[in-house]
């Protein structure tokens, strides 16, 4: 079997089929071409098709993540997790979704009706907007913005806006407390995220995601930028955990002390929106980390080692992207089911006394490394 794989890969290499890096083709560019050709049907088709595709993808992804989270959590805790619905409970998230959709949609009596109503939709909008810029594969991307990185950093703040609105609009002290914590947390940790993005921009000299990915053809940034990149990745990972409200930073939800925090007063469909948004946000953060540190959809390439590069090319770009992203997601789940929740003062201490100074030092280091071209394959 091993020799067979070897022969096949040798053949593929010799044909040189996979030698060059594919060009980015975004859906936005396809739409634009058809629009310029004044082909109205094709234009509409390529607008509607990605919409349906995105909706399906988001739903399926969220359900899969919910299932995986429950299963993985169970196995970390010596349990089995869902086992009844379908083979090893594989249909459990669908059953849950149907249950949630059938539930009564309650609005508390004294709630601010408008804010309470729109908060979950804003949460969903934030995630969908983020999804737009993520490059899954060279030809699976909605729009390749010139300021993709900045855009993603901006859009990731919308989710917390939704949490704030939900907490404020619910007329519930626990919700409000959760929302306030979320705001404090976001303001603190957004700083670290932005500082890390500055490091990435220093290295790549670009905010365009496709550009960032192409630059990692010689080696991924996490290896290329050695210590600076590793510190940057660590800060980014920790800060994303905080921004995603995941344990050990899940203070806005805090089951033990706040009920469920900001979504205490939500039920049915609109609760599931928060739920979905939370899981999709996790995917988004991991996808962004993959893109800027682990080469996005690029296979593992080392400049100069053509044999290795060709073997790595055997896996299609989408598989590489999903592999890396799911590894990071697993890491997040692993952390979630291992560590206890921090106190709010510990949370603030970690950010302002540890991550932020470290990030600032890292920027200086990055500037030195970049200006002297001390990174690999400069």
């Amino acid at each position, binding site marked *: 079997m091993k020799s067979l794989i070897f022969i096949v890969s040798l053949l593929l290499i010799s044909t040189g089929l996979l030698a060059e890096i594919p060009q980015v083709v975004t859906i936005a560019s396809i739409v634009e071409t058809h629009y310029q050709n004044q082909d109205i049907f094709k234009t509409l088709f390529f607008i509607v098709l990605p919409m349906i595709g995105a909706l399906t993808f988001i739903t399926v992804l969220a359900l899969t993540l919910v299932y995986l989270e429950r299963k*993985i959590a*169970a*196995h*970390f*805790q*010596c*349990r*089995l997790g869902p*086992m009844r619905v379908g083979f090893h409970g594989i249909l459990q998230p669908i059953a849950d979704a149907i249950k949630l959709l059938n539930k009564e949609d309650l609005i508390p009596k004294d709630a601010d009706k408008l804010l309470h109503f729109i908060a979950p939709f804003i949460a969903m909008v934030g995630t969908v907007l983020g999804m737009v810029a993520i490059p899954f594969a060279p030809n699976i991307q909605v729009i390749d913005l010139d300021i993709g990185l900045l855009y993603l950093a901006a859009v990731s703040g919308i989710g917390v806006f939704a949490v704030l609105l939900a907490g404020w609009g619910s007329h519930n002290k626990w919700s409000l407390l959760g929302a306030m914590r979320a705001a404090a947390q976001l303001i603190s940790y957004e700083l670290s995220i932005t500082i890390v993005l500055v490091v990435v921009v220093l290295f790549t000299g670009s905010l365009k995601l496709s550009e960032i990915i192409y630059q990692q053809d010689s080696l991924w940034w996490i290896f290329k930028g050695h210590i600076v990149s590793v510190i940057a990745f660590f800060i980014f990972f920790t800060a994303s955990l905080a921004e995603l409200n995941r344990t050990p930073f899940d203070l806005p939800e805090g089951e033990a002390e706040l009920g469920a925090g900001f979504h205490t007063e939500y039920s049915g469909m609109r609760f599931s929106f928060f739920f979905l948004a939370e899981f999709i946000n996790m995917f988004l953060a991991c996808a962004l980390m993959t893109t800027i540190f682990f080469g996005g959809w690029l296979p593992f390439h080392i400049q100069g080692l053509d044999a290795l590069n060709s073997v790595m090319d055997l896996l299609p770009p989408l598989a590489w992207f999903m592999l890396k992203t799911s590894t990071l997601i697993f890491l997040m789940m*692993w*952390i979630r*089911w*291992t*560590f206890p929740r921090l106190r709010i003062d510990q949370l603030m201490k970690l950010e302002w006394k*540890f991550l932020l100074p470290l990030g600032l030092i890292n920027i200086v280091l990055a500037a030195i490394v970049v200006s002297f071209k001390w990174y690999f394959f400069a």
Partner: protein
Amino acid sequence: MFDSWKNSKVKEVQYGNLQATAVQAPVIERNNVFSTTAFAFKSLWTGLKITMYYFLRPKTIVTQQYPENRETLKMPERYRHNLKLKYNEEGLHNCTGCKICETHCPNASIIIESTKGEISKKIEVDSYVWRQDSCTFCNICVLVCPFDALEWNPDFESTVYDRRLLVTQLNKYAGPPAKVIGKMDDEKKESQLNANKEKYREKYIGPNIPMNGATLAGVSKLGDSMDKKGGGESNV
């Protein structure tokens, strides 16, 4: 895996004439930010290692697929669900009717009726009533019994539609404990076991619990006294 606490300092302490070994909590050295950070990462890694250990070993899973494995279900040794009297091979229990368990039960879930036996001339238990409906399974009764007469039965499927059915009489015969019966000769033993035959019941027949007008086979209505003929079977 879990050896780190063994490395921590151990101290011998004396409380009066009691010798004890106290484990000192490891002191975290907070000299500077670097060693603190290193310690933090080390301890985080320890935690991650432990959870990964269990994640990678599906054999450590303790969940049982209950209704499917009903035949092969294995309950943990110390599982508490049904209180029962220990019986020896001859079917005799050890309970002397001393009522120590009754006085210790925090929920008054044990009611013991005992009389002085005519043949044995000793206090013997007539009915040992245990109310599962109010028991918190605190295990105190088992611990305090000086004659080691009680134990737990892991048989947990005790769902009923009326809580009166959870009130059960534990003893299968009314009479002296095994030790006393064991000392009797065969003839006396026979007459002893025959003497309280009519008290030989397993279903509770004592004071009633309100049932809001409903009836249930085998359970007497509120107001029916237990002296009435038929007791438990009055309103079948």
